[in-house]
């Protein structure tokens, strides 16, 4: 029988409990003949927190769009818990600051409730359960007292947390965040890392696009170096070596031999809004 649910959401994809939350097999994608992603292979385990690092235009946003099923790869396959992303509602994303219309007539509660939409279903109103879940999500990110604020009245850090709460309300198992640290001061950044630890306990798999290697190394268990291709994927210790960095930032990283066997890599972060973010890696 065609129920309302099958008609409009055509069923939710079933998770294979033995499959990793995210697996990319040989994924390639081109824009106007130029490669955006080239032969990306990647497996991310449940609950892992991965910093995605690469220069501007390295394909980080494209990677996120492919993972969330908004773009289809030209070659290769994306597998979310063992099946194609198209029907998964478990992928949450936190947009970049400048992609949000902050003056939209919605308060914090409204925005977080948007994450419930497909669970509520078409032609239905949010119920008591949905409201309870939204309140829990707000509690988790520490915004309970600001539920009725308009989103433009929040600080930058609070605004990021609204969208994390939205992903939690969505019951997302994979969360993608595009440059969430942009424009945040140190305290707000630390608040965010505190929330990442909560996500870790909830076994939420997290991918965060960043451009600050130091922060990536300090706060993430895995780093993915991306410049159209995967240039390296591993723990900070494995990735933060000059050879990898030179590949990721050709022309931006300079190697200086200090003494035999000891090299210094300077990363040129000219366009970084945060002047403290210069990476100086002593090896």
């Amino acid at each position, binding site marked *: 029988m065609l129920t309302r649910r099958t008609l409009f959401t055509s069923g939710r994809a079933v998770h294979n409990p033995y499959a990793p939350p995210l697996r990319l097999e040989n994924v390639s994608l081109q824009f106007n003949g130029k490669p955006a992603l080239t032969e990306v292979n990647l497996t991310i385990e449940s609950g892992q927190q991965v910093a995605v690092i690469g220069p501007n235009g390295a394909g980080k946003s494209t990677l996120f769009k492919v993972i969330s*099923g*908004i773009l289809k790869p030209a070659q290769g396959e994306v597998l979310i818990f063992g099946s194609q992303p198209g029907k*998964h*509602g478990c*992928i949450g994303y936190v947009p970049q600051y400048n992609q949000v219309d902050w003056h939209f007539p*919605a*308060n914090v509660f*409204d925005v977080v409730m948007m994450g419930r939409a497909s669970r509520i279903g078409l032609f239905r109103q949010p119920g008591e359960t949905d409201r309870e879940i939204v309140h829990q999500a707000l509690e988790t990110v520490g915004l309970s007292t600001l539920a009725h604020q308009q989103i433009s009245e929040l600080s930058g850090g609070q605004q990021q947390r609204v969208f994390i709460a939205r992903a939690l309300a969505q019951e997302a198992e994979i969360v993608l965040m595009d440059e969430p640290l942009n424009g945040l001061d140190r305290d707000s950044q630390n608040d965010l890392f505190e929330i990442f630890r909560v996500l870790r306990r909830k076994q939420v798999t997290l991918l965060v696009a960043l451009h600050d290697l130091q922060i990536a190394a300090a706060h993430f268990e895995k780093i993915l170096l991306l410049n159209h291709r995967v240039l390296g994927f591993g723990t900070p210790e494995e990735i933060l070596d000059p050879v990898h960095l030179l590949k990721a930032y050709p022309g931006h990283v300079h190697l200086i031999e200090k003494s035999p066997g000891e090299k210094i890599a300077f990363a040129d972060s000219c366009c970084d809004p945060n002047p403290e973010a210069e990476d100086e890696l002593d090896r």
Partner: protein
Amino acid sequence: MNWIAEPLTFDFMQRGLLAATLVGIVCSVAGTYVVLRGMAFFGDALAHAILPGIAVGYLAGRGSQRGLFWWAMGAAILSALGIGWITQKTKIKQDTAIGIVFSGMFALGIALISTVHNYAADLTHLLFGNILGVSSADLWLIFIFGGMVLLLNMLFYKEFRIIAFDPVLAKTLRLPDRFLNFLQLLMIAVVIVVSLQTVGIGLMVAMLITPPATAFLLTRRLWKMMVIAAILAALSGLSGLYISYFWGVSSGASIVLVATLMFIAAWGLQFVFKRN
């Protein structure tokens, strides 16, 4: 209070006032999304692009009003599809595509109407509205189709809110976003077609955007924005028509002028409150 009752002794004024109120409410609700999604130029264009549909319907029906609605809807849908098609298939930007389609359609409409004898009078009514010529049949049309638009808007409220605020979320939640976008365009087209007689093609966009924009300054919740816009628009319709009756001003123009004054007042109010 004789001045309120006096115009109501005329049937055409009763119908006009009812039409102005209904149109104001329906336009505000659809127009709220036009404002929030930055589609004002598209709304203006759609109102103009309807003209050849009306002209063909008018010529085919030998001057009868019957079937005009469907001809107008046909022209609106054709134009909306044409704009989408040009934007997707060429490197031309959307606003240019809108400009090309709407001026082309508008010119076609004028060309068709100019073949008729009483060309100037008909065109004036289409361009600037003829609210006092609203018939009972027209009122029913506004009532039924306007009611459908309001109902659809309530049914898809939470989905429409998402595609207006965050289209990417609509995709990751696997909402039927293409269907929802098309439905919203269709609703805007329906609203424009049923409202055309009140303010005409030239001022149609004001009915879509001015009351919602005023409400946008006054509230921070979506549903409140719709309700306030609807109330303001209904008030503009009523008072505009009274002004038109007593001072002999064009009805469409006075309705829009009242709505514009409300916008200026809300802006001033916001300015005063921000300073305190």
